[in-house]
């Protein structure tokens, strides 16, 4: 186990927001570390690393990150706050445990996808939308595969176009929102993009073929495919913020002020955890937090106004994808809600509160610790997500013992 190193600024999350924050803090002369659980920095937007992307934006941040000294702690996950300025960090690829001390902390922990259950959603081959994109970016050979993309949000057409470039046969992009809301996105994908359309059920015949039942403009159609990617937008990863004691709103976003400062002194938050807004907003917020955490007021001033402009545009875009009532009524009595513990809808219906349901059914008590079913039970039953308990992420008994020694 390594001794605890102290950095003036520690960033958790190496996506666009975290990279921008780390660069700005390092450029301001601070010692900086970035902790990320992936093998390569980049987050979801730049999965696989900045050097894989030919965009001007990626090249710019690659250059900035290489021009300064930053310690990248990859394959590492923060599981606890050991003391007010010390993080307990577990390796994801070994049994190693270490502590990292910070002067200022910047949370850039991103978001995960919102899944809403429908019959068959646990069958292998059914994934999230960003999930299928991430798997493809990490080497999944999707060439010639028949794919249905479904759910809601601006990610659907983006992923559809991207998967087509990888050679996938995208049969249908099913957007649940009505056309008048999202019309301008349709053109980019082509005739496969269909609004007022959603997945009702999926079944498998056992040999990797999926039969997807789809509701389209009042009709029910069946589409045969190999992969179904379905998700309904994003949920902020605010568990670590809760663990630290930052104020988190009921919609799971972290409360921040104009300088991205949370309710906990010295702790900042940027990107999707403060409200879903996409990579451009995250990059602007990362810069604000990086300069603010470094006390670099001169550099901070100009990025504040830019951040507000980008936020406004992206928030308008996302507001168009309000979810229709039908989506919340797709699960049947035997549809699994908590995938870790195999708890079905029918066994949860009699409970008034999530806490009682958890104690009696183990709903939310598996390895994902409610990260997938928590947002579901909030939306289906109105249950509050409950408090985050230590450790913030599953650790092995060996790691737990090593943490206790610290």
């Amino acid at each position, binding site marked *: 186990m390594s001794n605890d190193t102290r950095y003036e600024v520690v960033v958790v999350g190496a996506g666009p927001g975290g990279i921008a924050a780390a660069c700005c803090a390092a450029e301001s002369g601070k010692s900086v570390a970035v902790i990320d659980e992936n093998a390569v920095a980049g987050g979801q937007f730049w999965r696989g690393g900045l050097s894989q992307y030919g965009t001007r934006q990626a090249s710019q941040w690659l250059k900035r990150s290489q021009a300064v000294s930053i310690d990248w702690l990859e394959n590492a996950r923060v599981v606890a706050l050991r003391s007010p300025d010390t993080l307990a960090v577990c390796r*994801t*690829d070994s049994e190693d445990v270490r502590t990292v001390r910070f002067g200022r902390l910047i949370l850039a922990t991103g978001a995960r996808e919102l899944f809403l259950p429908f019959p068959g959603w646990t069958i*292998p081959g059914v994934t999230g939308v960003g999930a299928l994109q991430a798997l493809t970016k*990490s080497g999944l050979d999707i060439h010639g595969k028949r794919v249905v993309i479904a759910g809601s949000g601006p990610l659907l057409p983006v992923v559809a176009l991207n998967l087509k470039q990888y050679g996938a046969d995208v049969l249908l992009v099913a957007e649940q929102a009505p056309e008048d809301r999202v019309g301008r996105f349709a053109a980019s994908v082509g005739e496969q993009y269909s609004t007022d359309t959603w997945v009702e059920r999926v079944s498998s015949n056992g040999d990797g073929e999926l039969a997807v039942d789809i509701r389209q403009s009042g009709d029910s159609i069946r589409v045969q495919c190999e992969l179904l990617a379905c998700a309904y937008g994003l949920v902020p990863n605010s568990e670590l913020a809760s663990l630290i004691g930052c104020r988190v709103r009921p919609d799971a976003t972290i409360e921040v002020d104009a300088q991205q400062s949370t309710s906990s002194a010295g702790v900042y938050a940027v990107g999707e955890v403060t409200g879903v807004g996409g990579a451009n907003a995250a990059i602007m917020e990362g810069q604000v937090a990086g300069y603010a955490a470094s006390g670099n007021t001169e550099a901070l001033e100009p990025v504040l106004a830019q951040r507000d402009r980008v936020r406004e545009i992206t928030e308008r875009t996302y507001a168009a994808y309000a979810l229709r009532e039908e989506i919340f009524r797709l699960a049947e009595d035997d549809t699994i809600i908590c995938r870790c*513990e195999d708890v079905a809808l029918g066994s949860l219906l009699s409970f008034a509160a999530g806490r009682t349901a958890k104690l009696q059914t183990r709903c939310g008590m598996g390895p*994902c610790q409610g990260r997938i079913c928590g947002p579901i039970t909030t939306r289906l039953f109105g249950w509050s997500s409950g408090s985050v308990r230590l450790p913030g992420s599953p650790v092995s008994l060996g790691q737990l013992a090593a943490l206790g020694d610290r």
Partner: protein
Amino acid sequence: MGNDDLSVTINGTGFAVSPTTSVAAAIQNAGITQFRRSVSGSSRGPLCGMGACFECRVMIDGLAHRRSCLTLCRDGMEILTDVE
């Protein structure tokens, strides 16, 4: 896929993969859809693709419960699916 210069074994069978391939992708490319079984025995594979759901966990080099979507293939890696 390009430069397949690593070799891994999945359930004892050898596969050539590129160094940027995640274990999850390598398993799926090998034609395996069931990564593990749920507590009541039903078939499961990756859901979130980014380390949140724990559905894609497999045994890697003797370590159980590794999230295959977060792990990149390394030369000589031994991957076992469907072990709990």
